[in-house]
């Protein structure tokens, strides 16, 4: 009889344990779940791994279930089951084992009742632990399966992304604040919050869910074409494709009045013609760049003087070569010559250090021996640069080295401008890089030539006439730009040698004798 009573009591305890599990699941997962929301998860991540100076703050998006919510669910179900079990013990505990409801002696006189209820509750405890353990095991198995599947996929996707970034040199550079990052931030189209790291990971493998509920693609390769990119530092918009396409930055520097801006526009004019001939799409991703170039080209084509570069911080000029994921974003930076000497402008010249290629424009009239030679022939022009070209070059190089920029990672194009004026004054310059370097050395700029070859990964010398329609000539202003772009993997048609004339036999005599 006792055995039957015990078996029945145990059976009842197991059933109640099952009901407890059901209650725990319903309350813990549906009725009052412990939901780990994006903001809370971000705070947890930040607390666990504080963001370093200059590092990216974790994004506000729903974490992938196995990484956080699964553990919260397990904890909540256990808490609900424990709460229910404690509630079940309340009356028997008070009645049988304390004086809260009067003396418990009365209950122990009717002996079997307290014992049966106590045994039943103990069986409930064991059964609840067993059932909860089963639920926990199932949850952990699901987590393990998910991790086994998603882990390698994440590694492969990250590897592909890193490989593509390294191969194409995809970066996100801001033409306004000159901040360069491996990938930009992307704005949620619904709530406009920035997602600073959209790589596959804890917030999603293929897609992630923004705090507002909007599904966003992971990986810059996909996000770049579906979301609006923004600078990680100043939050200003970046061109479509930023972070997913090749990004080349070229800075033009030189003395005031050396013809930098005119060279820039003439070079662009030539490059646009080259792109058109080769069937490569050419366009401007922002209105500011387009207006700037249209204005410059209008002056160039009309034969008017180019406006002097403004003394304010120099904006970048961005254009796109090609279409879609295989296109290239090219940023050209032009700054007023006086900025290099102005210590207050130090920060606004940040683009110099981030440039892949540099173009140093020399006004040949600023080279003493050349100026004297041309003066003897009556050749002169209205606004010659007045500073020694070696001095301006030295200031920029010193600035770069002081900033910790390794020159061996940059290429330098040394451009001798105003070839048309020289030619009209009877001075034909060579077209070959080495011959131009020789001519510069003989003309008194030997320190510049030696330093350029020593300080940079590669230095080439060009002679250009900053005129419209010069792309087929030897003094094509687009040649330096094309060389730099090719050096960084941009596919452009092969350089034609047509029109590139030979060194004038008189050059060595005219300038070399004086140096």
């Amino acid at each position, binding site marked *: 009889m006792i055995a039957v009573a015990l078996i029945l009591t145990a059976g009842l305890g197991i059933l109640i344990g099952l009901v407890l599990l059901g209650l725990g699941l319903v309350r813990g997962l549906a009725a009052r779940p412990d*939901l780990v929301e994006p903001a809370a998860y971000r705070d947890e991540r930040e607390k666990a791994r504080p963001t370093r100076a200059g590092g990216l703050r974790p994004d506000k998006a729903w974490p992938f279930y196995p990484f956080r919510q699964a553990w919260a669910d397990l904890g909540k179900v256990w808490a609900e089951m424990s709460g229910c079990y404690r509630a079940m013990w309340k009356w028997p505990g008070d009645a049988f084992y304390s004086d809260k409801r009067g003396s418990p002696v009365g209950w122990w006189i009717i002996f079997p009742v307290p014992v049966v209820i106590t045994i039943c509750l103990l069986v409930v405890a064991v059964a609840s632990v067993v059932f909860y353990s089963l639920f926990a095991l199932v949850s952990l198995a699901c987590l393990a399966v998910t991790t086994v599947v998603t882990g390698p996929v994440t590694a492969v996707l990250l590897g592909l992304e890193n490989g593509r970034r390294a191969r194409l040199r995809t970066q996100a550079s801001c033409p306004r604040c000159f901040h360069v990052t491996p990938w930009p931030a992307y704005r949620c189209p619904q709530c406009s919050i920035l997602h600073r790291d959209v790589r596959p990971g804890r917030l999603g493998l293929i897609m992630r869910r923004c705090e507002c509920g909007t599904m966003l693609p992971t990986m810059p390769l996909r996000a770049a074409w579906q979301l609006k990119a923004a600078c990680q530092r100043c939050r200003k918009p970046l061109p479509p494709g930023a972070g997913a396409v090749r990004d080349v930055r070229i800075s033009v520097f030189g003395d005031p009045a050396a013809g930098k801006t005119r060279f820039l526009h003439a070079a662009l004019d030539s490059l646009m013609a080259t792109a058109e001939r080769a069937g490569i799409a050419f366009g401007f991703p922002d209105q500011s760049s387009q207006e700037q170039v249209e204005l410059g080209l209008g002056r160039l084509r009309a034969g008017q003087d180019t406006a002097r570069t403004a003394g304010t911080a120099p904006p970048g000029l961005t254009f796109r070569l090609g279409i879609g994921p295989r296109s290239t974003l090219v940023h050209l930076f032009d700054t007023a010559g006086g900025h290099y000497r102005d210590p207050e402008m130090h920060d606004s010249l940040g683009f110099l250090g981030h440039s892949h290629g540099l173009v140093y424009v020399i006004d040949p009239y600023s080279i003493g021996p050349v100026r004297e030679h041309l003066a003897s022939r009556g050749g002169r022009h209205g606004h010659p640069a007045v500073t020694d070209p070696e001095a301006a070059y030295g200031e920029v190089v010193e600035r770069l080295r002081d900033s910790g920029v390794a020159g061996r990672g940059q290429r330098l194009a040394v451009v001798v401008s105003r070839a048309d004026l020289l030619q009209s004054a009877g001075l034909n310059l060579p077209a070959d890089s080495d011959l131009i370097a020789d001519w510069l050395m003989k003309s008194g700029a030997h320190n510049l030539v030696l330093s350029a070859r020593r300080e940079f990964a590669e230095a080439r010398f060009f002679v250009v006439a900053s005129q419209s329609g010069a792309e087929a000539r030897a003094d094509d202003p687009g040649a330096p730009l094309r060389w730099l772009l090719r050096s960084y993997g941009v596919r452009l048609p092969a350089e034609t040698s047509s029109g590139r004339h030979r060194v004038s036999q008189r050059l060595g005599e005219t300038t070399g004798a004086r140096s």
Partner: protein
Amino acid sequence: MKPPPQIVIFRIVTVTITALILLTVGLGLAGRGPLGGLGARTSQADQLVHTLYAKGWLG
């Protein structure tokens, strides 16, 4: 805040699997379903109780 569908799906899957396991084991102990073999163990335990009861060892 409403939980995203991904979370709801994971929860439904884990609860369903747990319920199925419990159901299968329960039916198995009753000698039914894919784990019907467990029924033999239940019968053995039942017989043991009957034997002990018949011998008067269980009071």
